[in-house]
């Protein structure tokens, strides 16, 4: 298992790569909304699809559409390089 210590924005994580959420860099209102939707530090997530303006994120059994600016605000560390 390859662990990178540098947090990077979720926006730059490739399809199918598992990542761990470490923090949210945004206004309090938006951080709160995201954490209510399940984006809490420590959770594992991965990118399922990219529409060209938003990402589809797998978050446990939930699938979330997230616009690019929000994907920039979520800081993650890569847990494991996926197959693709």
């Amino acid at each position, binding site marked *: 298992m390859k662990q990178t210590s540098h947090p990077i924005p979720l926006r730059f994580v490739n399809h199918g790569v598992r990542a761990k959420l470490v923090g949210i860099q945004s206004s309090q209102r938006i951080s709160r909304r995201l954490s209510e939707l399940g984006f809490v530090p420590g959770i594992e997530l991965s990118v399922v699809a990219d529409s060209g303006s938003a990402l589809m994120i797998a978050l446990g059994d939930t699938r*979330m559409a997230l616009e690019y600016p929000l994907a920039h605000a979520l800081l993650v560390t890569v847990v494991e390089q996926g197959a693709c």
Partner: protein
Amino acid sequence: MTTMAGLAPQIPFSYPAPVEREIAQLAALFAQTPALAVYPARWLAIQVLEGDETLLAEIEAHGGSAVVAALNDSLERLRAVYGDELDIVMVDQRYRFVHEVATRAVTRPVTPPATLSDQIDRIVTHRWFGIPIFLAVMWVVFKLTTDVAAPFVDWLDSVVSGPLSRWVSALLGMVGAGGGWFESLLIDGVVAGVGGVLAFVPVLLSLYFALALLEDSGYMARAAFVMDRVMRLFGLHGKSFLPMIVGFGCSVPAIYATRTLDSRRDRILTGLLVPFMSCSARLPVYVLIAMIFFPAYAGQVIFGLCLTGIVVAVGVGALARRTLFTRQPPTPFVLELPPYRLPTLRHIWRQMWERTAAFVRKAGTVILATSVVVWLLLAIPARGDDQFAATPVDQSAFAALAQAGAPVFAPLGFGNWESSGALMTGLIAKEVVVGTLTQVYVGEDAVAEPATPPSLGEDAAAIVTGLGAAIGDALRALPGIIGINLSAAEEEPLAEGLATAIQAGLAASSNGHATAAALALLVFVLLYTPCVATLAASRHEFGLRWMLTSLLGQFAIAWLAALIVFQGGRMVGM
């Protein structure tokens, strides 16, 4: 009775100790404050610590200075421990708890396997295939709402204008009230108004059927995800696309569909742009005018108009963002995508029925009332010495009012009372423009009445066989959805002399530039003030001010666009 609390085992859940201390203190304080007694005290304490703005404002307004001071002290102490992340800590604690309960109860593989949903999404939400797939789905929906619903619309129309009208007048004759203005009011005002409302029902039922199917299967959320990129052109995001799509069917349900949007800014902006989507009621007007003036290119002209509507909406969206909504930034686009599911017929039927019934209740009364007002205007003689309800159209108060409005349209090439009158009645429902044009140019006699009215039995039989034929036509139209055309193309015959009369009318009002005037009239019909049903929906959802913005703004935009088209067309020699 045993309550749930009695059955469920008690599972301890608590926030971290410093948070729990403050919650307990605040809850005790809130419990003693009568103004806040409506809320459970512990719940209220948790909400305000998480920063719920509405509740914080309420406490500041009604809680009293001691409560506000205690709350600020609590927040201060917690900030010292958690910084700005208090709310996240609290939400996190809840998720941890849920996670713990779930892991104890459910056994799952460490790495969740790729689900069928994800495999479907790999294709459906693909960066390049996503939009073509979406367009194909929408095409099927349009075919369903137009070709499949059309036979039923025709059937309802023939029932209302034939047997139903005859029965009403027979009934009035029986009670001795037939023949007079009252009969005319009931038949030409009320029954015609009911017919106008009913004409929407098959279209809406099939539209809502398709939408319920897409929503329940989970595709609608994917479409919002895929279309997010396109919606950004309008200054909106993916969630606004649904109302826009519904807008091609009818603006009224489209305006109600804005309710699913998160912020008021998005709801209003979407509501303002929806009427620019060329609704199905405008189609008959395009067909009539395009068949007369551009018989070889009717299809292209109609398609061009739909496209023009979208382009204008993009422009208006950009303008509105820079003028009306400068202070409100767009809300971020976050949307949960449910897994794909097989829809149930029961639920689809319930959605179709509830939404259509809501439209009939809300818009129905407005359409009915307006058609009675138009009947009155047509009944009141303004010139000549005709009696009430027996005046020719060109001498009615309606014609006088249309005449007064006509100069407004002179620079656009269609400043005759026939056109302005037709546009006026188009405010009831856009397709009424066709009926009015026929009525004012050709007169009532265009519809030939049978020499001897059919009997009650013949009428009833005709209604049933008509319904049978409509079902047959609808079934034959189904293969057409995927491009197989079984029914021979039939063209509605134009009323005798209507084409020449409209051509002559527009030629006179535009000094011989009838083609340019016709094109300007089409663009005007596309863009001008939405119908009363849409305005009623808009007022209901956004308030009077935004309804007026829509009413006046669209009139101005339509006037300007038609001016550009007519003057431009004249210059290039149309």
